[in-house]
């Protein structure tokens, strides 16, 4: 095992189109040595009645993390590589401010420990040059971790790290893979004009 990816310049990319909803990320997250059975990643099914689309949601590791800004106990720290950590156990007062404030819905207040826990990009692994667990195992490379050069050499799509939530601009360490550059405006959906509108040709007269 000789991976050495510099965490300060590494790219963590999420490509939702590739997610197959298999849950390997959820299962592997719990296996990270420091997570010890608690999975920090969310895997959301968007609308199973209509589609198999699923969305893996890691912490986006904001440059100015809202969770830390709203924390009354100063319990959420960001390290020099830009990774936003789980709350510090001695400081966390389990108030859930961060849970409500995070634009991506990442932090969870784990009642069993009375502590906010969240994705820390497997800092025990990434700080040693390894990939995080979820991006190690992801079978479809929907979750991807590596160097920018490798991404640009091997993958299509554009890395987007700028978000607009109403009036709030957010820049994140984790990128999503989009077709076009530009800010992701989460209030504007994208039209589909594809066979998916009618996969079994039920609207075709036959």
């Amino acid at each position: 095992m000789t991976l050495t990816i510099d965490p300060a310049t590494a790219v963590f990319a999420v490509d939702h189109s590739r997610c197959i909803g298999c849950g390997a990320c959820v299962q592997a997250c719990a296996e990270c040595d420091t997570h010890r059975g608690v999975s920090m990643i969310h895997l959301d099914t968007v609308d199973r009645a209509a589609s198999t689309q699923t969305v893996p949601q890691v912490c986006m590791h904001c440059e100015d993390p809202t969770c830390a800004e709203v924390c009354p106990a100063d319990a959420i720290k960001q390290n020099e590589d830009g990774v936003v950590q789980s709350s510090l156990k001695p400081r966390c007062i389990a108030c859930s401010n961060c849970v409500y404030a995070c634009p991506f819905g990442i932090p969870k207040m784990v009642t069993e420990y009375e502590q906010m826990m969240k994705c820390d990009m497997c800092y025990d692994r990434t700080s040693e040059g390894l990939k995080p667990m979820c991006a190690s195992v992801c079978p479809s490379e929907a979750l991807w971790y590596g160097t920018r050069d490798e991404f640009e050499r091997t993958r299509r799509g554009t890395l987007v790290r700028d978000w607009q939530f109403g009036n709030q601009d957010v820049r994140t360490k984790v990128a999503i893979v989009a077709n076009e550059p530009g800010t992701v405006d989460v209030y504007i959906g994208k039209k589909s004009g594809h066979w998916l509108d009618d996969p079994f040709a039920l609207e075709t007269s036959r």
Partner: protein
Amino acid sequence: MAQIPLTEEALVEKYGPHLNRTPPGGWDAGLDIDSVVDTHCCFCGQQCGIRLKVSGNQVVGFEPRYDFPFNEGKLCPKGVKRYLQGGHPDRLTDPLERDPTHPDGFRPVSWDYAMDRTAQEIRRIQETYGPDSFAVLSGVSITNEKSYLMGKFARLGIGTANLDYNGRLCMVSAGAAGKKALGVDRAANPWSDIPLAEVVFVAGANIAECAPITTSYIWRARDRGGKLIVMDPRVTPAARTADVFLGLRPGTDLAVLSAIFRVLIERDWLDHDFITAHTVGFDEAAEAVSGASLSWAEEVSGVPAARIEQAAELWGTSATGMLLHARGIEHHTKGVDNVLACINLGLATGKYGKPGCGVNTITGQGNGQGGREHGHKCDQLPGNRDITNPEHREHVASVWGCDESEIPGKGLTAQEIMDAIAAGEIKGLLSICFNPLVSLPDANFTRAALDSLEFYTAIDFFLSETAHHADIVMAGSLHEEDEGTVTTLEGRVVKVNAAVSPPGNARRDWEIVCDLADRLGRGQYFSYTSTEEMFDELRRASAGGSADYTGITWRRVVDEQGVFWPCPEEGHPGTPRLFEGGRFFHLDGKARFIPTPWRESAELPDEGYPVYLTTGRVISQYLSGTQTRRIGALVDQYPEPLCEIHPRLAGELGIADGDMVRVESRRGEMTVPAKVVETIRPDTVFIPYHWPGDKSANLLTHRDIDPISGIPEYKISAVRLSKADGRGDVRDDRDLTLHGDNR
């Protein structure tokens, strides 16, 4: 006497499945790691590399194995959690004998007793009813060495022709078609060819759930601009983003494939030079699709003609292309023909033997490839030799040191063995790595057949539902408790390493089999002291066969991260890509176009049973679930079978999401929660098959088999549906989060 000794409920209470949720000692045990063992996943045919963490002779966790080239650390959830099968409370650690008076239904016995009783019963049954009245059922989640051993043991140890394996339910349609058309049964390409394809055509393969790592290879092709065609009655997770989706009616693959072939001919998207130089039989195959117009195919399959034409154009005009197929087209009474129709598309366009070109089956089981080569199929000897061929028999007899006449002839296939048990023609059974009560069609029939056996010994590590019927249970070994080789879906031979030794009085499978051979007075053929000895004998037995392993040694397998067969001599580099230069494996070097005229499936919907039922797998479970139904985190992900049903059909029947729905066929019925989704055809419902008893989808399926391969038609049964009382617990996976129970 092979009826279950206690009620199912009582047996389940004692032997499970119970759910193991935590590593040995719990999550916070802080165990010192004694070793980290490079090995492979125990589940599907991709055989992902994995590293197992070991502490105190127990597997306590895993690490991604980044250096193994196939998966580079990737795993599906089954691979991540597979380590939890070790240290499991259900693990069998003693040989057992059926005892209805014992509170557990089985009582622990000594190995001597279990061996002697089994040997005596084998000989009694054979002397009373004839040598073939005792059957052996094997499986391909075991290594090449054990597969080879089981073939030799059935033929020389027991002396029965009736040996078959659970690959009969999986890979045999692809295998038979490959041998007929190409002269060999192996995927044509290493998976590293997939990214080089301009078009990838996935036919009847839910790769996202059954071969998840393969999705990354397809995305690499798409990153380079490649197009994706998917043919499936469901919009599977990998189909969701396809460029062309052929959402066909179950059982009509052959119509769509034939229409594509006809378009290739009409538009002259053919590689004439390749056809002339490297194939025979084109004209007859072309004639067989002359009636397969686009409009006819649309009528039969329900897929718009324009989409079929679009698929044909992509396949026909792309310089490179890979067609990947799996059980979706193979689990049919015309499974072999469906595969042959795919092969015809590859041959017609010259898409063989070149980078990014090939037609490949996605082998399902862990050692589905190697296990189907080395002689535990009823018609086969090692090296993929033919048991009816006198020269092949002579060669294997010379390696085994026996007289050719000592090797029995061709036996019955797996379903035929169960049919013969029900008919009273087979009276005794020994099984390893096979849970037919869950995996064979028509489970009520299978249960009655098992009940009628005079004697049954099962070798297993957990007490499977089939083993509930056993007279003797021999506690065998888990994947991580023994070493050997497996051959992946690429045809790459890889090394499985032992991480721990079997617990308690459990023994390695091969030691059990060799001991039993000795008790049968046939020990002279089974004097192995290691599995590597078996592999070296297998190499000699395979020499000159189509699956030639002569030049493959354990050392090379480890040093080279796997070696692709054929590898006919030491120093040979192996053969990652077959058919280079258009050389096929028939004696004349040419491939055969084989005509595939249209025919219907065995059981079509009618007035009484108006809906298609199709069955398959889900991501978090594996085959009959003997292992994965015992791992808590995997069970949480998909706890019980659901019936996927389109809102249009659900609406007609007054069924809402989560309602219990009664599904009936001519064989049986079951009641399952409805999962109402637009991702399945309205004329079709889907139920996954991993569960036993009243949750078994195989209560509904039928026993018709492909006349050539013997594969059952799991993909089409006719059923009727009605709303039942109550509501099910339909997990909606909206937020799959693991804490609580799994902590």
